[in-house]
């Protein structure tokens, strides 16, 4: 609070102004990307992030699009500069890179980075990290859910030049276009990424014209110190101590497989160490995390516990240390696959950190989210256009109840912050018809603060064939509640083949090994799939929820009459066509469920 040192009032104003300008630049990058891109995953879902770095590869500013990406990109950029060396870069160069073992997040996540020079001197870098939909590999949609090695997951690019001094490096483009299944999309999306870099470079130049290289560099460093100071101050409000928690990832095979993640958090005078020692070894499956993904999950959770106004630059990360032993599920070694680490394991790590911290700061945490991205990938030739398409579909989940409020319904998992593709855009682009899209009643975990609801969609194939893959989690073990709150509904993925009269699991319908990891299943015309996302866990005992609120939930269909009775101890009945509370029975239920020795 009092440590502004020698800075004058002018410096203080300049810091605010320059930070706002830096954030303005990355936001404009994001708008450019959104508008110019080809794939709905960018234009509708915004699954990309834009970041500015200083010459020392320290983060200056980020956009709020995807927390997992901005956490990982720090490592990518540091690695990339260390590997190729800043002396080997020239103005107009753009380097691309998606290698999970070089600081990356997972194979679909492509980083493009452009050095920015000012009057012949290197100022820093503009970078865009984006989830490309089709990158080749064993399954359509860049998401080989059953992969056992990285080589099956798509085309891996170490840091290579996409552009050299403003000119196309055609060899690389030709390799990329020859390996991706929908090259037209890859071409359009890569150009949208390049356009975002160009606009950012221009804006950085304009900023440097006004303030000069030295002043911007100095103030950027001050901004990082400022963010660090503030972050430490916030972390000092968390009681010092050691906090532990564990949970697992799963495979809905028979019997289900579990991979445990174990965490010990040490909070000590404004710094945090998150240690995953003791977690299970990496598996021959896609739920492994790169170090970048694990660190991102921790940063993401910690940032949710502190003031959201702290500038999210390099300084805000400094007080946080992440220990993830190599060869475990939290730090995968080559050639372990990792595509689901970013989408499934990251949210679990985030929840595990909150679970641990619930013992320290119960009023700031939440119960578990639905905890799966509900990845559903598909592709084929569109019968109307004759063109090949590929799409990465995901769904929102219920979020956990909080100390003061219910959990939100149907939100993107915490590793991302993506928008759902509208039904009307989805059907215009892809040969499915959607028969329903709704909230799943009773899917939120019961609690004084109820968990949010997951969603349910039914899609029917309107083409001769669509090739689908999927990766889900939380099909077996439900999202947990906190402080007496109940668990939420699990996720599910079901299929009703044309001519069949009921929805079945993929194991039943196709004999797949797993219900939650499937690849390259060929759906035919008339087949229907039902995608159900999990809810969020409840917070606090459901019997502490005011009966009037339970009644409202029943009137609005969030909670059934049966669940109101069974979980909340609230009796609701019909009286003269009105749905009303039965106060006597409610009191009886609630008295019976009261723990021994407690009084109301």
């Amino acid at each position, binding site marked *: *609070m*009092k*440590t*502004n040192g020698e800075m004058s*009032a002018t410096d*203080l*104003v300049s810091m*605010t*102004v320059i930070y*706002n*300008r830096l954030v*303005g630049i990355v936001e*404009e990058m994001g*708008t450019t990307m959104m*508008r*110019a891109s*080809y*794939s709905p995953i960018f*234009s509708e879902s915004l699954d990309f992030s834009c970041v500015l770095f200083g010459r020392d590869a320290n983060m200056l500013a980020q956009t*709020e699009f995807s*927390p997992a990406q901005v956490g990982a990109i720090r490592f990518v950029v540091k690695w990339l500069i260390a590997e190729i060396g800043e002396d080997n870069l020239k103005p107009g160069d753009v380097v691309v890179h998606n290698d999970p073992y070089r600081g990356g997040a997972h194979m679909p996540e492509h980083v493009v980075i452009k050095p920015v020079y000012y009057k012949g001197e290197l100022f820093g870098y503009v970078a865009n990290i984006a989830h490309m939909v089709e990158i080749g590999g064993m399954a359509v949609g860049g998401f080989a859910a059953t992969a056992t090695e990285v080589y099956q997951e798509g085309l891996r690019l170490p840091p290579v030049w996409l552009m050299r001094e403003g000119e196309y490096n055609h060899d690389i483009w030709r390799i990329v276009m020859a390996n991706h299944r929908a090259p037209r999309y890859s071409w*359009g999306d890569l*150009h949208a990424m*390049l*356009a975002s870099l160009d606009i950012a470079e221009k804006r950085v130049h*304009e900023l440097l014209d006004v303030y000069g290289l030295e002043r911007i560099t100095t103030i950027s460093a001050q901004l990082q110190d*400022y963010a660090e*100071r*503030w972050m430490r*101050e*916030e972390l000092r409000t968390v009681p010092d101590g050691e906090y532990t928690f564990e949970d697992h990832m799963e495979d809905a095979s028979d019997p289900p497989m579990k991979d445990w993640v174990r965490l010990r958090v040490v909070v000590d005078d404004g710094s945090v160490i998150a240690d995953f020692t003791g977690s299970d070894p990496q598996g021959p499956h896609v739920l492994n995390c790169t170090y970048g993904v694990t660190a991102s999950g921790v940063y*993401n959770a910690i*940032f*949710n516990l502190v003031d*959201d*106004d702290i500038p*999210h630059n390099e300084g805000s990360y400094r007080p946080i240390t992440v220990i993830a032993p190599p060869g475990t599920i939290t730090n995968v070694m080559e050639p372990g696959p990792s595509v689901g680490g970013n989408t499934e394991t990251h949210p679990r790590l985030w929840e595990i950190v909150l679970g641990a911290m619930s013992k320290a700061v119960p009023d*700031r945490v939440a119960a578990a989210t639905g905890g799966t991205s509900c990845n559903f990938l598909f592709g084929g030739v569109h019968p109307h256009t004759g063109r090949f398409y590929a799409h990465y579909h995901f*769904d929102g989940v219920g979020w956990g109840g*909080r100390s003061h*409020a219910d959990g*939100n*319904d*149907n*939100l*993107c998992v915490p590793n991302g912050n*993506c928008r*759902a593709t*509208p039904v*009307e855009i989805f*059907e*215009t682009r892809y040969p499915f*018809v959607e*028969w*329903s*899209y*709704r909230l799943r009643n009773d899917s939120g975990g019961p609690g004084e603060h109820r968990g949010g609801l997951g969603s349910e969609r*039914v899609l029917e194939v309107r083409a001769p064939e669509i090739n689908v893959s999927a990766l889900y989690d939380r099909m077996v073990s439900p999202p947990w509640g906190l402080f007496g709150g109940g668990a939420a509904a699990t996720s599910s993925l079901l299929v009703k083949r044309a001519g069949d009269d009921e929805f079945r699991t993929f194991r039943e319908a196709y004999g797949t090994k797993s219900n939650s990891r499937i690849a390259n299943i060929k759906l035919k015309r008339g087949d229907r799939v039902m995608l159900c996302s999990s809810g969020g866990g409840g917070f606090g005992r459901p019997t502490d929820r005011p009966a009037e609120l339970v009644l409202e939930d029943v009137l*609005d*269909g969030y909670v059934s009459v049966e669940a109101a009775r069974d979980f909340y101890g609230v009796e609701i009945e019909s009286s003269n066509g009105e749905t009303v509370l039965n106060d006597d029975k409610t009191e009886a239920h609630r008295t019976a469920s009261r723990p021994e020795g407690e009084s109301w």
Partner: protein
Amino acid sequence: MDSDFAGIRVGVDTGGTFTDLVAMDVRTGHVQVHKRPSTPAQPSDAIFECIEQMDAPASRISYLVVGTTVAINSIHQRNGARVIYVTTRGFEDIPFLQRTNRRFHYDLQWSSPTPLVLRRDSVGVPERIDYQGEVLIPLSDDGLDQLAADIRRRLDGAARGDVALAINFLFSYVSPDHELMTRDYLRRKFPDVPVSVSYEVAPIWREYDRASTTLVDAYVRPLVHQFVQSMQAGLEERGFDRHWSLMKSNGGQMLSQSAADRPVQTLLSGLSGGIIAGRHFGEAVGQSNVITLDMGGTSTDVGVVVDGLVRYTTEWEIEFGLPVSAPFIDMTTIGAGGGSIAFINKGGLLQVGPSSAGAVPGPACYGQGGDRPTVTDANIALGRLNPDNFLGGEVKLHPDLAVQAVGSLSGSLGTSVEATAAAIVDVANENIAEAIRQMTIGRGLDPREFAIVAFGGAGPLHAAAIARSIGVEQVIVPPHPGLTSAFGTLLADLRVDKTWTNIVRSDRLDPKAIDDRLQGLVLDATEDLRREGYGGVPTLRRSVTMRYLGQNYEEEIPIPAGPITAESARDLLESFHQHYEQIYGYRIADEIIEMVQFNVTVIGRTDNPRFPEIEAGPDAAPVGTRSVLFDGQYVADCPIYDRDDLAPDQKIEGPAIIEELDSTTFLRPGDSLTVTRDGTAIVQIDATAD
């Protein structure tokens, strides 16, 4: 409308704090202005109070335009209709599923916006149309009868006047048949329940955006209707028997009755007058590129006029996640006004706003118990505001309390009171400057090619510093800056926007079909314009949004006059390529282009009144001097002028301060000010000063 120019033209602006009225006698040029505290419970009361203060009876009013916040307030206060949402079965939850993204990455405590409908009031109808307009499930009589029963059950027990219906079926923008059939059926069944239909309110794709917009239309309908009725009754009582108009969010005006029929268009009715006025005052001094800066007590509204044209958008949100897709004047509101509170955040940096001291307790210097420093307190501490002449001396300010409040931050910042006050003003100015950058640079415009038109109570005080920060060289201060928005309502044209979403691929393009449909849109729009009260020949603008096949966002390209032919269609496609290349740096020459949304705007121009010329006379002398802090230096004897004394063509060199009833203009050393014939002040900014 020629006869309208015989009497008195009246413009009204209903703000959160004050209701302003500007009246202008067309023949004599006599202008009168009135200001009353707003009456949110019954907004027409304050308007009638203003009308009664006029020195002529209401029967002499020939022309009345009202900017109102009725619609937006009913949403903010959540006191609108109980809406029953009628939609495609299986998709009843669209308003609740929303978009799945969060306001902030890392704010676990954020809760998603509450829709304007209860989930229990969302009713599905068996019907389905696909993306090509093909009927997959027909709308049946049984389905409609069941719907009527579902609605009737909800109407029983609800106060009739408070219920409204909103219909939104999937793909209605491709084929509205089912929506229109349902509308007609429901109108027959429930003649006194208003119906909003998505195809009529917002025929756009993206079902959630369309749902949200249609819900807003239904939600605000009873209150807007009630406002129009109470205005009508009160006006008739006072002998006014003509048509009158409301401002629309698109900066045009529409007859009051039409506004009641399409209330979503009045959402930002109360905000658009300022930008229209800004355009006028810019044009009056030969500036067709202006940035409007309306800085009041709690916030600042920024708008942009390019080549004399106001910019529009259809993307606007009530709050994060609650979109409204209707034509809006493109503007930004920043939480930076005179009452914005300065504080030191937990990281130790000085911040200003968005929280405001409001009218009560107000800034510390009001002496009403506020002790937190505001922008106004900082200006008092710097000597820039006159404590004895605030609102013409009506409000007595206490400089000692201002200094004390500002000083409360000095300790932790380690700076003097003066430096702290200067920093507070600078941070507020920079917040506004950054918003202007996003409105200009962020949209491919160079702010250095613009002038700022500054108004609102605090605009003229801050505009020079903001101008310098963004490289603007000229600031225009209209006469009566506190009433500029009200004056703007007198300048609004009649304007109707029509859109048609229909995806047309460049390789399957039928120019004749497009031409027919565009002509149909023009006829519809012109018809509406006549219904809204225009009798002349309207100005027509057409445009189409386009994208490369596969993209989901479009760029808007104007369609030149003349029929759509194979040749003009080719030119249009080439215009898109060129426009795209200019923005993104590349074109995709061999790619198919999709035309997505066709837009038609018809405008009925109104003759603009002008402020009368001010009296010629000798240059005014300063009315006094006081000590004012400029850039860290005190100017002990800074001259103070009374704006009402200034003569036409008078020139004043900074440093100087010009005071008037409702505003203060601030000239830094090096800046200079000249006065035009109608009393507008033009400030030339010294670009060399830092």
